[in-house]
């Protein structure tokens, strides 16, 4: 699946987008998997309360299932307007 990062999450991880092969069942599982990879992921995902997630461009919860999802995006709370 495609995993996208925005704002400081993108800066901390160092890429805006990457392909991830995963069998993670939920967003939380994917976060744990990525965090175990490298420090830059662990640093970005250290405080999940400071993060939001979207699945196929719809806001979701961290316990949401990933079955059938093509695009996951992680970003800080939005500051539009």
């Amino acid at each position, binding site marked *: 699946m495609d995993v996208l990062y925005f704002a400081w999450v993108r800066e901390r991880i160092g890429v805006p987008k990457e392909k991830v092969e995963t069998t993670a069942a939920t967003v939380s599982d994917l976060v744990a998997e990525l965090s175990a990879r490298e420090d830059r992921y662990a640093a970005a995902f250290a405080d999940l309360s400071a993060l939001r997630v979207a699945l196929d461009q719809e806001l979701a919860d961290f316990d949401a299932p990933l079955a059938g999802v093509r695009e996951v995006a992680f970003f800080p709370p939005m500051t539009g*307007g």
Partner: protein
Amino acid sequence: MRISVQQEPFDLGAEANAFAAGDTANGAIVTFTGVVRDLAQTDLAYMEIEHYPGMTERAIAKIAEEAKTRWSLGDVLVIHRYGRLAPGDRIMMVATAAPHRKDAFEAAEYLMDYLKSRAPFWKKEITGSGAEWVAAKDEDEDALSRW
């Protein structure tokens, strides 16, 4: 309903005129415009707005559709810019047309509240002393609970 997520500036007068043109069904048109300000007088050089292409348009459309179910609205316009903006630049505008002003005002406020914290934009401020992402405010999140 028109939604535009764009890098280039917009002409507030032309947009408002085009939005209002030929409308005889709606007695009330409200427009709101957001402008880049130097918040803490921190010597803001410019602001960089990032967004999530695809989700941004979908999220705004969903917010506008929800507004149309809650109020009697004739039309809705949302323009939101991204990229580099200087103090004084216009970031975004919403316009609502309704038979009566209460609907037009309330829907415009609703759109603004939701655009602030449910449309995927992120602001970064670049000042003389560095660059910093603007943190979301609790009060912006709390503002959603009144709807």
